[in-house]
């Protein structure tokens, strides 16, 4: 633990609560009295300011684990709502500091210039996420049509008992996995290329599902949102029936913030 906590006299109290951090924001960020954060019952949300930057926090019991779906939703809702109003540096879920001094000194003061620069960079921008998943039937048919071995394996297992064709099934599945991965790479490259003329930064995310086709986050100007949406729509139209494309956002710029080194 930090030296602050080790200094002693109020140690018991310090162990009872912690400060859950949602985001860094400009100091003039406002929270409503109704704002609810993580925990059960949901904790209130407050602003701890230092100079011209601030942290959005909840004081939470330190001996309660977080991580229910409600906690995730609360974190995302609060951060994204704030990001509609002001530039926001969203924190990854799960950051807790022991006390207010740690929030002010170790987080805000120690990283002030970096945070202030990052907030300025994010002003007037928001993140959009393009997420596409292959239609199962469409992608399997596509691979079978292109891959002779896959088609042969399909024919071998068709109508045969599962136990008797286990090896063929594993081979076919492995082949499919590889083929889908190759298509994911191609389609991601195609999407990135289609959006490249708009000139926005993009971050390719790791797939979180075996049929994920594209998963790319973009940092988009407020002025450019419509054109960005239209371009994604055009691309989605060309993939209709093959890839189910969704556009998430605007959300806080989760993919465009880095790591903060806590000061001492």
């Amino acid at each position: 633990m930090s030296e602050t906590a080790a200094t002693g006299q109020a140690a018991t109290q310090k162990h009872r609560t912690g400060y859950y951090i949602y985001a860094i924001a400009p100091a003039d960020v406002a929270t409503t009295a109704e704002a609810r954060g993580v925990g059960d019952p949901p904790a209130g949300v407050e602003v701890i300011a230092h100079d011209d930057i601030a942290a959005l926090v909840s004081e939470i019991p330190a001996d309660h684990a977080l991580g229910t779906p409600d906690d995730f939703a609360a974190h995302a809702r609060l951060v994204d709502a704030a990001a509609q109003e002001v530039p926001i540096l969203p924190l990854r879920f799960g950051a807790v500091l022991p006390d207010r001094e740690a929030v002010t000194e170790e987080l805000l003061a120690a990283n002030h210039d970096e945070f202030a620069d990052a907030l300025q960079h994010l002003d007037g921008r928001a993140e959009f996420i393009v997420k596409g998943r292959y239609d199962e039937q469409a992608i399997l048919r596509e691979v079978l049509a292109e891959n002779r071995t896959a088609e042969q394996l399909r024919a071998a297992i068709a109508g045969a008992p599962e136990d008797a064709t286990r090896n063929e099934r594993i081979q076919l599945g492995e082949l499919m996995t590889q083929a889908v991965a190759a298509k994911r790479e191609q389609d991601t490259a195609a999407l990135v290329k289609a959006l490249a003329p708009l000139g926005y930064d993009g971050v390719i995310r790791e797939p979180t599902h075996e049929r994920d086709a594209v998963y790319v986050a973009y940092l988009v100007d407020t002025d450019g949102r419509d054109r960005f949406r239209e371009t994604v729509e055009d691309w989605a139209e060309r993939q209709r029936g093959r890839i189910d494309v969704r556009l998430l956002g605007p959300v806080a710029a989760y993919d465009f913030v880095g790591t903060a080194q806590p000061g001492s």
Partner: protein
Amino acid sequence: MTVQPSGGGGALNRPDASGLADVIDTILDKGLVIDAYVRVALVGIELLTIDARVVIASVDTYLRFAEAVNRLDLTENQQKGLPDLVGDINQGAAKSRTKGALDAAGEKLGNLLDAAPEREDARRERRRTQ
């Protein structure tokens, strides 16, 4: 999972709110990280949830893919007579399967998480005794 197409039935879905799976992808993997030592209170749960989400190519995945291929109705390709009808049905079925899988993932995660506080307590107990 609420997926509501907007803008007049285009190919692009623009959900009003992110589903749990989307939220988890974002807030557990992305966002500003403060040095690890201040995150200890929650680290057990975080690892657990990330484990549940990583795509790992395993024999199970392979067998699932193979079974999906085995279930494919290939008659559609041979009988060009009723492609529209069959196409619609297949598409509908595929869509609902996708959603079902997502919901199931969310539920599974929920179950894991319900069980998680105990693990967290256990970890803490170990830490105390060290």
